[in-house]
C-alpha cells in the first residue's frame, strides 16, 4: 500500500500489522490481545505511537487503526468532516464483524468516538473519552493547535518534554524530513475537518443519546483540552465518571502508568 510518508511502522509490542480496505478507504490497523473487542481511536498526531495500549491487550482484543490521512493510512479524498470518520468506523466494525465494542478515543479520536456514540450507542459496551476534542466550552476553549509555532507544540501536549523526546528524531539526522512530512500530512488531514474550529457546535445538543457507561479521562495539566471541560462533558453524558491523573498533560496515556490503568480498570 502506498503510504504518504516513509515512516517506520510503530507496531505496538505483541501486535500484528494489517493493511485492509474498508469500502474504498485503505487503512493500516494494529491488532493484538484476546478478549472482548476494544477499538482505540488516536488523536490528530501519532508521533508518540501506541505503546500505551499494550497493557489493554492482556484482557481485550485491541484494534488500533490509523485514521485515513494519518500515520501509515493514506489520504482518502472523501474525508472532509468528523461524520465521514464516524461512518468509516461503523464500516470498520462491520468489516471486522464486531457487533459491540468498547470504544476508546483520544483527543480527535475522542471527538469521533463521542459523535459515533451519540449516533450509535447500541454498538458500544462502554465508552472512554481521553481529553476529547469536539465540544465547545467557551470559558475553557480547546487550544487552537494550528495557531502554535511547531517548536511550541511539545510543551502544550505534555507536562514533561522528556516524554516526547524519544519519538522526535534529531533535526540534523536522516529521519527528520520524514518526521516533518508525516506531521504536515497529519495536520493537513486534521485541517480538513477542524481548520475552522476544533469542535462541533451542535455536539452538545446530542450527547444525551449516549447511554453506555462512560469514562472521561484527563490529565490535570491538560493544555489542549483543559480539564475543566470534563465538567461540561459529564453534565451532558448521562452515565459519565471523571478520572483525573494529577500532573499529566494532554497525552495522559503516555505520561503516566495511571492513565492506561484507569482505562483498563473501567472497562474490566
Amino acid at each position: 500500500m502506498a503510504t504518504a510518508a516513509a515512516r517506520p511502522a510503530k507496531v505496538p509490542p505483541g501486535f500484528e500489522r494489517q493493511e485492509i480496505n474498508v469500502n474504498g478507504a485503505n487503512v493500516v490497523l494494529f491488532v493484538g490481545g484476546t478478549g472482548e473487542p476494544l477499538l482505540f481511536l488516536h488523536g490528530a498526531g501519532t508521533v508518540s505511537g501506541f505503546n500505551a495500549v499494550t497493557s489493554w491487550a492482556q484482557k481485550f482484543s485491541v484494534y488500533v487503526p490509523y485514521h485515513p490521512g494519518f500515520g501509515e493510512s493514506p489520504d482518502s479524498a472523501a474525508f472532509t468532516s468528523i461524520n465521514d470518520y464516524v461512518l468509516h468506523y461503523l464500516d470498520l466494525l462491520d468489516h471486522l464483524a464486531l457487533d459491540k465494542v468498547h470504544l476508546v478515543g483520544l483527543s480527535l479520536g475522542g471527538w469521533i468516538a463521542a459523535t459515533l456514540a451519540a449516533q450509535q450507542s447500541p454498538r458500544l459496551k462502554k465508552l472512554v473519552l481521553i481529553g476529547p476534542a469536539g465540544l465547545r466550552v467557551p470559558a475553557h476553549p480547546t487550544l487552537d493547535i494550528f495557531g502554535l509555532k511547531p517548536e511550541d507544540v511539545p510543551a502544550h501536549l505534555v507536562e514533561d518534554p522528556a516524554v516526547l523526546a524519544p519519538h522526535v528524531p534529531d533535526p540534523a539526522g536522516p529521519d527528520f524530513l520524514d518526521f516533518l512530512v508525516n506531521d504536515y500530512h497529519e495536520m493537513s488531514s486534521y485541517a480538513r475537518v477542524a481548520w475552522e474550529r476544533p469542535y462541533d457546535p451542535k455536539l452538545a445538543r446530542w450527547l444525551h443519546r449516549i447511554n453506555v457507561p462512560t469514562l472521561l479521562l484527563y490529565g490535570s495539566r491538560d493544555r489542549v483540552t483543559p480539564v475543566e471541560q470534563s465538567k461540561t462533558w459529564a453534565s451532558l453524558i448521562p452515565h459519565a465518571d471523571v478520572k483525573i491523573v494529577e500532573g499529566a498533560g494532554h497525552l495522559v496515556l503516555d505520561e503516566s502508568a495511571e492513565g492506561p490503568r484507569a482505562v483498563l480498570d473501567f472497562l474490566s
Partner: protein
Amino acid sequence: MRWQDDLQFYSMHFMPYVHLPPDQDTYDSLWVDFSNRHYDPKKGHELYQRYFREMVLADELGYDGLVVNEHHNTVYSMMPVCTAAAAALIPVTKRAKICVFGVPVNFVMPNRLAEEYAMLDVMSGGRLEIAFPLGTGMEYWSNSVVNPASARAKFRESVDIMIQAWTKEGPTSFDGEFYNYRYLNVWPRPYQQPYPRCYIVGTGSPETIAFAAERGWGYASVFVPIAQQVKTFRLMRELMAKHGHEMTPDKAMANTIVYVAETNEIAEKEAIEHIKYYFTVTARTTPRYLAPPGYISLDQFRIRAGSATKMHGGFDWDEMTKNWRVAVGTPERVAEKIAGWCEEADSSRVICHHHVGDMPHWKVVKNMTLFAEEVIPRLRPRSIPSPAVAGVPGA
C-alpha cells in the same frame, strides 16, 4: 511568433509600507501577525499618492502594462483590495493595460469577482488583463475563515464559475462542490469578448502549471529563481500540447527586478540596498506561514522543507545576480541580461519591478525612465531603431 517580434514590458508595483519600527528585524514575520499598530495611515496616504504617481509615469513612458496584485496583513503590499487600486488607475492612465494579477478568488465570492473584473474591463474600455493566484500560504492565515486544505479544489471551481459567468449568456446555474448558483448573470459583461486575457500566477508548483495548461492560458511566474521559471515554462509547453493548446512566447511572463543607471557601479550602489530590503524585510516570514496545513501536496512539502529557499528572509547578492532575474547596471548590461532570459525561456512578456523595497521616489523615476528610453529600444529594434542593437544577443 518569435519572442523578439512581440516583446512587451509591464511595470509592477507592490506598494509596500516602508515606515517600520527600528526593531523590525526582531520579528520573525512581517506578514500575518505583525501588528497593524505599526501602520500610520497618514504616512500610508503619502505613500499611496507617491506610488500611484509612479504607476501613472509608467503609462506615460509607454510601458505596455501596469501590474498590481494583492496581499493581506503585511508590510509587503498596501493593496489588500487590488481591484480598488486598478479602478484608481483607469481614469489617470491612457494606454497601458491594467493588469490585476490578482485577487485570490478563494477570499471572495466568484460571481462577485467576475463582476469586479467585468466592471474594470468596461470602465477601461478593454484594457484589463487578469491573473488568477491561489494566494500565498500567508494569505490563508490572514483570511483564516477559508480552509487551506481545500483551497486548490475551491480555486478551480471558482475559476470555472467565473469563466461560465463570462462565456454563457445569463442567467445560468452552477451546481458545484463549494458553490451553488441559481442565477449566474453578471452585469456588466466584460468589454473584451469573450473575456479579458487571463494568466495563472504562481511559484511553479505542478498543480498550478497543469491548471494553466488545461485552459491554454499564460503563466505569470512570481519572483522565483531563473531555473524555476524556465522549468515552469518548459512544463507548460509540454502540457499545453497535451491539451491541444499552443504555448507561445506571450504566455510565458518572466518576472524581473531591474535597475538602470549611468554605470554598473552607480546602479549597484543605488539599487542593492533596496533589493536587500525587499528580500530581508518586506518578504520576511516563517516556514509555518508559507505552508499552512493542506495548502501544498506532501511531495511539494518534502521538496520545500528539504531545501531552504533564499526567498522570504535571506539575501546573497552574488547568488542573486547569478540565479535570479535581477538586472542591475547600464542599459547595455540590463538589455543583454533580459534578452538572454527571454531567449532562454522563450518569453515575450517581461514584468519589471522598477520600485523595489524601500526605494525612494527619485530612484524609481530615474530607473523607470532610463529603462523606457535606453533599455526597451535596445530590445525592440523595430519600434525604435537604435545602433546599439547589433551587440545584443538575440535581438
